[in-house]
Structure formats: structure tokens, C-alpha cells
């Protein structure tokens, strides 16, 4: 068993989420930085569907009552070396410590974190208060077991530097225009991509708010539509909300552009005060960017 000695700021159990259940109003969920979570699983030899811990801003302390291979990826962690497998001895304690640069760090345990599957996933859904083993973020004294989601041997070396995303502001994030491009005038997206956006302190797994002092966007009202992760919504006050994993399934704000799948991990790591710059790309570049990350995950190491 693994015992939570200190839960950290906001630590939840996440896997690849439960996409496909949006019709019940259920957010897709899953690790906000899907790439770092996948690498953590690869480092310990897990199936990529295995559940990991998503740690935010300040990481947890975890006590192991039997020997386990673990790996910590994503944002920098003060108290443990990241992107490399570690063997936790029986009775030892894993300390993640303060997190940053970057916001979210992932802890994979060989075998995956074994909590009940709810609606197809082990991910904690905050809005519905279900999943994630406890229906809430981890708390002191919580105990959980490692499972059997094993797909091979742990890696013997660190994950190569050249196959990681660089973590730190300013974040350059690629977008595809729309789907509500018609609600804006033609100059809106070029004006947005020409300026630096600032990440506001109001931020969670549902989304992050961006302020753009250099540009004020206005849009026609729209009728509520389904929305996707990465959607850049423009509110009536001209502020922007970019949707992350736990986003509401529908929205009434027009979406000027949508972040490509390959760059969602960057947004997941942005901290309050950081700078985000958007760049418009075509579907071919989005596809190449995704294949690049997927290719790294498939490499034999």
C-alpha cells in the first residue's frame, strides 16, 4: 500500500479520462499534461491507461510499505529528480516538494494506482465529486494500492532531454482558428496572435483565464454549443478563458480559436503571471506536432 503522509496543495488521481461521456454533462477529465503523464507511465513500464497522481504547485509525501518503482515527470519538483525511474524501498517516503517552473508534476507507480473505475476512468471528476478513488483530492492518511497495469520493464535510464517539452514562460501555443470565427471580425485572431497574454491567478483544471492588455476582442453572442478542451473562449468583458481537461461540456461564449492537442500540455503547465503567445497553424502542422509527441512515446528505449 501507499500512504499519503502529506497530500500537497491539490493532488488528484488521473488517467486518460473519460472522453465520450460528454453527452451526460461529464467533462472528459484526465491528466491536464497528458504527455508528462504518459512519459511517467512509460518510465515505470506501465500501460498508458494506468492512473497516476497529478500534483499541483506543491507536491505530496507518500510512504511505501513495499518496494516499488516510481517516476516523477512534468514540472520541476524540488525534492526529487524528475524524468527518471526511482526504486522506493519498503518503508521509504517519496517527497515531491515544491513544484516549479511549471505547475503540474505527475507521479507514476509501477502497476498504476489501483482505485475503482467510475464511468470508464479512475480520474477524479471535481464537478461531479466522483472518481479518483476518494471522490476528492488526496488527503492525509489516504491509502491506495498499486495495480497490475504493467506493459513492460521499467526504463533503465532517464527520459531523453530531447524528447521532453521545454517548461517555462513565455509559452508559445499553437491554435487552429474557430469554431466561432464568424462571431468575430476578420482582424480579431491576427490581433490576438500579435500580443502577449498574461495568465491570471484564477486557474484550475477546468481552465485558465488570460488577460490581454494590448487587445480588446468583441464578439457577437452565440447560442450555447458543445465545446472542446483547448477552446479559447472570449467573454463579454473581453477576457479569455482557455478550457482544460475538466472543462464544462457546453459553453455560451464564442470560441475564437482552439489550442492543438500537442500543445495542451504547455497550457497545463502555465502558472499565474506567465506569458502565453498564440500562433495560428493549419491542420497539417497540428497533425505533425501530435505525431512528434506520439512518436517519442512509442520509441523503444
Amino acid at each position, binding site marked *: 500500500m501507499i500512504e499519503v503522509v502529506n497530500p500537497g496543495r491539490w493532488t488528484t488521481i488521473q488517467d486518460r479520462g473519460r472522453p465520450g461521456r*460528454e453527452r451526460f*454533462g461529464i467533462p472528459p477529465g484526465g491528466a491536464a499534461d497528458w504527455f508528462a503523464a504518459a512519459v511517467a507511465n512509460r518510465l515505470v513500464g506501465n500501460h498508458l491507461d494506468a492512473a497516476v497522481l497529478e500534483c499541483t504547485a506543491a507536491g505530496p509525501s507518500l510512504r511505501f510499505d513495499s518496494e516499488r518503482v516510481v517516476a516523477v515527470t512534468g514540472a520541476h519538483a524540488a525534492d526529487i529528480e524528475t524524468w527518471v525511474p526511482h526504486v522506493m524501498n519498503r518503508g521509504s517516503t517519496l517527497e515531491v516538494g515544491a513544484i516549479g517552473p511549471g505547475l503540474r508534476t505527475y507521479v507514476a507507480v509501477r502497476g498504476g494506482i489501483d482505485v475503482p473505475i467510475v464511468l470508464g476512468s479512475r480520474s477524479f471528476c471535481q*464537478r*461531479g465529486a466522483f*472518481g479518483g478513488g476518494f471522490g476528492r483530492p488526496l488527503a492525509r492518511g489516504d491509502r491506495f494500492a498499486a495495480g497490475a497495469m504493467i506493459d513492460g520493464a521499467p526504463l533503465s535510464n532517464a527520459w531523453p532531454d530531447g524528447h521532453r517539452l521545454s517548461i517555462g514562460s513565455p509559452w508559445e501555443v499553437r491554435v487552429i482558428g474557430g469554431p*466561432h470565427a464568424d462571431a468575430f471580425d476578420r482582424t480579431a485572431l491576427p490581433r490576438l496572435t500579435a500580443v502577449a497574454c498574461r495568465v491570471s491567478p484564477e486557474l484550475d483544471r477546468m481552465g485558465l483565464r488570460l488577460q490581454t492588455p494590448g487587445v480588446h476582442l468583441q464578439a457577437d453572442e452565440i447560442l450555447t454549443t*458543445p465545446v*472542446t478542451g483547448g477552446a479559447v473562449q472570449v467573454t463579454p468583458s473581453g477576457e479569455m478563458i482557455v478550457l482544460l481537461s475538466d472543462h464544462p461540456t457546453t459553453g455560451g461564449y464564442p470560441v475564437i480559436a482552439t489550442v492543438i492537442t500537442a500543445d495542451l500540455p504547455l497550457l497545463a503547465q502555465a502558472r499565474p503571471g506567465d506569458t502565453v503567445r498564440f500562433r495560428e497553424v493549419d491542420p497539417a502542422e497540428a497533425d505533425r506536432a501530435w505525431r512528434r509527441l506520439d512518436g517519442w512515446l512509442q520509441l523503444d528505449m
Partner: protein
Amino acid sequence: MWQIAAAGDRALLVTISSVIEPAVLAQVLSLDRALQERRPHGLISTLTAYGSLLCHYDPAVIERDGLAGEIRAFEGRLDASVPTGSVVAVPVRYDGPDLAEVAAKTNLTTAAVVELHAGREYLVYCVGFAPGFTYCGVLDDRLVLPRRSSPRTRVPAGSVGIAGSQTGIYAVESPGGWNLIGRTDMRLFDPAADPPARFKPGDRLRFVPVT
């Protein structure tokens, strides 16, 4: 003409119309059914709301333009009849924290507000925003009011609210800006149930006052 627009690199948003009307919802639901029955290769899942439908797809299997073409092929060929399922009774205690204010703003008595709200059948246009949240329409014109100027941070599960021309039911506790006029004990979202949400778009319901 349907609008089909990219929603990022893995989804397409099909907008059939931007008005809240039974006939529009019927078309959207009919397209949804057609896509389930004759699922284009590479289509992963769909989601509807009011006049639009989102298609998640795998770009490694089908390209955006190819999927858009397959969706477009349904335009003008759907049998879109307005849903006519049975009407579900939703028991409501009309004691919401905004009932008196709604009455004052609409120049009605609270009894008249209840009578108008409970006095008609509603169509479920969308389940979304939060787990199980059920958007219904449309309200009697006399009950149309804007949302509250400052949203509540916590609205209890089961709360029945009105906003604009719509009425909705909060299925789980969440923040919210609708004017709350009542509350139901009916459980609208249960993660252990299949399906987990009590209602789906196209369902019909009626609010029944209880004490």
C-alpha cells in the same frame, strides 16, 4: 446551409441553426442518430446542444475535410420529426431563494409564477455544462428574466432555475447564475447509474408543484 467548422485538430462543430426551436433540435438529434447508425470511419463520439453537434474524430483515420463531406451528405436528407416521447413529471417544491424576487421583477404573484412555470410541457434541449445539468425550454414570455448579476458560488443539486427563455435543473452542486425558484428531490445525476444522467436532449418533462 449547415456550417461545419474546425474545433481544434480533433473535432468538428456542425451548426444547423442558432435558434432555440423544437424543429431545430429535431434536426440535430436526427443527425446525431444518423451518425450513430452509419458511423463514419474515424468518428469517435458526438455531442449535441440546441442547434449544433460536435464530432470528435481521429485525424489518423480520417481527415477533417473528408469527415466534413460525410456529414454534409446528410444535409437535406434527414427525417427530422419533433420528439414526442412520454412526459416525465418532475416534483418541485417552489420555495427557491429567488422566487419572491422573480415575482417582483415580473409583476406577478409568487403563485402566478409557479402556475406559469408548472403550467406547460418543456423540451430538454441540452444536457451539459456540468454533470446532468438539464436545459429545458421554452418559458412563458412573462417569466423571461436575465441571469442574476452576480452568480452564486454554490447552488445545491436539484435546484430549479430560470434564465432568459429557459428553465434548468442543477443535477450536482455547482456555481450558477440562474434565478432559483424551486427544488426537486429527483436525482438527475448518478455516476453509478446507466445512463448516469436522468434526461437526454429530446426528452419532455413537466414540473409538478409539491409541498
